[in-house]
């Protein structure tokens, strides 16, 4: 028992290739969209209104996703430093600084040029820094800023008054889009877009559900993040709707052939928190060396908690979009977030929970310390809290993080009765 030699992580071959192609096409399309004056809407991932703006002919940019793409390609730090030179402090969110730094160099990234916004839609108002981010962009570009005020989710189910409040705002939003674009809302087109969303969501849910199998044929955190791009960025398109059939066919193939994410699954984990994108592979290797697989994770649900029963409904377009926005993971109160994690531990047969806290994000991270204590002391679930950053490579301390993870896996192993001893591998 103990650490095993590291091999290359196995991806779903066809799905990974298709995902890569979709990313390339998307960024190439963005550059074209800017050139052809196709309007660009900036939006946040959580609770986004992508179906509505797409039905008005907008292309959508998610600066959070641009930022994580920069980070995973080790290109976030220059943008962050650029933003800091403008006066943004060390403790300001890395997503924000990546974007504001990137805007100063004309949106040029290693994967293409990101055009400036024509419309800013603040679809997640739970983070005060995000609101300020959009205000800074609105000031810079002089474009309209729409605040979509989403009440915090206090109960397990959306309340009727909250839905009514959001639907009223959606109608105001549609009126603004009609005025801005000179087009009327095409309800049939919106319904078609929502049907595409629903198909993608169902496929994504099926993929995530396969983590319940023993051993798990999926890596629900590190690997799932790659297959998350279509559901988050391209939701509502035909391409995203069709993508998950490819993914799930390959997952079935994994089960048939016994090719699992790690050669021998030793630990099943639920992971909470945004990944450390600048050190993504290093962090993943810390898990893989111990035969640890994430069987469920909260982060891949930031674009929608589709696995908890919600799917967009083309028959009820506005109400359905309102329910979706309310139910965004980041919009859930802590008791609701705790319940989700507790359910994942039980339903997916997890051995432990790993929490990755984000140094520059108090919005997502605040409360994770209490979550750790609650899991350990109230539920008896072994839990490790690790902190670095989602964007800023300066916060990732590999020696300290590895040491904590090694000690954590040793203790899990010990409690199973095996001696906590490892072979000598660095």
């Amino acid at each position: 028992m103990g650490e095993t030699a590291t091999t290359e992580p196995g991806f779903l071959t066809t799905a990974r290739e298709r995902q890569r192609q979709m990313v390339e096409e998307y960024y190439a399309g963005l550059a074209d969209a800017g050139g052809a004056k196709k309007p660009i809407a900036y939006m946040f991932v959580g609770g986004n209104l992508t179906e509505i703006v797409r039905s008005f002919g907008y292309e959508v940019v998610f600066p959070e996703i641009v930022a994580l793409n920069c980070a995973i390609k080790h290109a976030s730090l220059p943008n962050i430093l650029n933003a800091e030179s403008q006066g943004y402090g060390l403790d300001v969110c890395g997503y924000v600084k990546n974007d504001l730094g990137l805007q100063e160099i004309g949106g040029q990234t290693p994967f293409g040029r990101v055009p400036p916004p024509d419309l800013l839609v603040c679809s997640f108002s739970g983070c005060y820094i995000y609101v300020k981010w959009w205000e800074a962009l609105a000031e810079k570009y002089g474009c309209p800023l729409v605040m979509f005020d989403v009440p915090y989710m206090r109960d397990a189910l959306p309340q009727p008054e909250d839905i009514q409040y959001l639907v009223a705002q959606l109608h105001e939003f549609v009126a603004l889009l009609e005025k801005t674009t000179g087009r009327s809302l095409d309800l049939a087109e919106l319904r078609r877009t929502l049907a595409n969303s629903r198909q993608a969501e169902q496929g994504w849910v099926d993929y995530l559900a396969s983590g319940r199998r023993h051993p798990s044929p999926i890596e629900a955190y590190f690997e799932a993040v790659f297959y998350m791009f279509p559901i988050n960025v391209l939701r509502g398109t035909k391409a995203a709707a069709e993508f998950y059939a490819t993914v799930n066919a390959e997952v079935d193939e994994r089960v048939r052939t016994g090719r699992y994410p790690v050669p021998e699954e030793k630990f099943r984990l639920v992971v909470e928190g945004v990944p450390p994108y600048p050190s993504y592979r290093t962090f993943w290797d810390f898990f893989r060396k111990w035969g640890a697989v994430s069987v469920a994770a909260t982060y891949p649900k930031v674009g929608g908690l589709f696995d908890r029963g919600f799917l967009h409904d083309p028959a009820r377009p506005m109400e359905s979009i309102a329910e979706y926005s309310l139910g965004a993971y980041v919009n859930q109160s802590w008791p609701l977030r705790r319940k989700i994690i507790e359910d994942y531990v039980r339903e997916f047969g997890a051995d432990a929970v790993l929490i990755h806290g984000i140094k520059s994000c108090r919005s997502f991270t605040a409360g994770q310390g209490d979550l750790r204590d609650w899991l350990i002391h109230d539920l008896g679930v072994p839990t490790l809290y690790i902190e670095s950053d989602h964007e800023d490579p300066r916060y990732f301390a590999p020696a300290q993080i590895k040491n904590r993870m090694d000690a954590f896996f040793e203790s899990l192993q010990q409690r199973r009765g095996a001696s906590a001893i490892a072979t000598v591998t660095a």
Partner: protein
Amino acid sequence: MTLVAGVDLGSTTAKCVLLEDGKLIGKSLSPVGVELVKDADRALERALVEAGRERSEVSVVTGTGYGRFKVTFGQLTVTEIGCHAKGAHFLFPGTRVVLDIGGQDTKAIKINEKGEVIDFAMNDKCAAGTGRFLDVCAGALGYDVNEIGTLSLGARHPVKVTNTCTVFAESEVTSYVSRGKDPKDILAGLHISIVNRSLSLLQRVGIEPEVTFTGGVSRNEGMVRTLDRRLGLRVNVNPLSQYVGAIGAALFGHERLGGSAA
């Protein structure tokens, strides 16, 4: 008769112990430099000389500490968290919480009745509240780190050291010196500051009636007394407390050969 070794390559010192059938028969302590493989080797050689034994007689060598992967002649590696837990439990079987303060790390470890780790909390990315903190501040006052613990016990009005950063604390010490504060009061303030930081970690894992204090800083009497006062109990400190990680490492080797650590 089985002979096993534990080599703890920490941030400032290398410790080695030799256990024969669960009994300590040799040990060594030496500073570490940049050639960690040689430091580990030297630590083992010195312990063998003290015990009057040959390297060929050692069945298993276990490496621990941040430099554990540089114990290249060993057969096992275990983190120092697991090793301090096991070592402390070996010396004090009733203990359920271990506080280890080393050169750059402070760890609070909750253990079960078998000496296995249940939970742990460590200082993050900052050496404030560790042995290095004491080194720097002792230097700022012109004392050797080994004498400051006893000196601090003579304080009458400990000062308040508010900074949580080792570098800034040095500035704070210098400021107190320039204001004519008694060095003993400054030293006591530094000790209280470290204990307060340690308490935060201990509270995170949960304080139990029997706490064992390990690591190089546990040799400091001022720290032990201050910790006793703040916890309202007498913490366990063994004369071998600096070797607890190495003892734990050796015990893992002993278990690997089928022995019991109890």
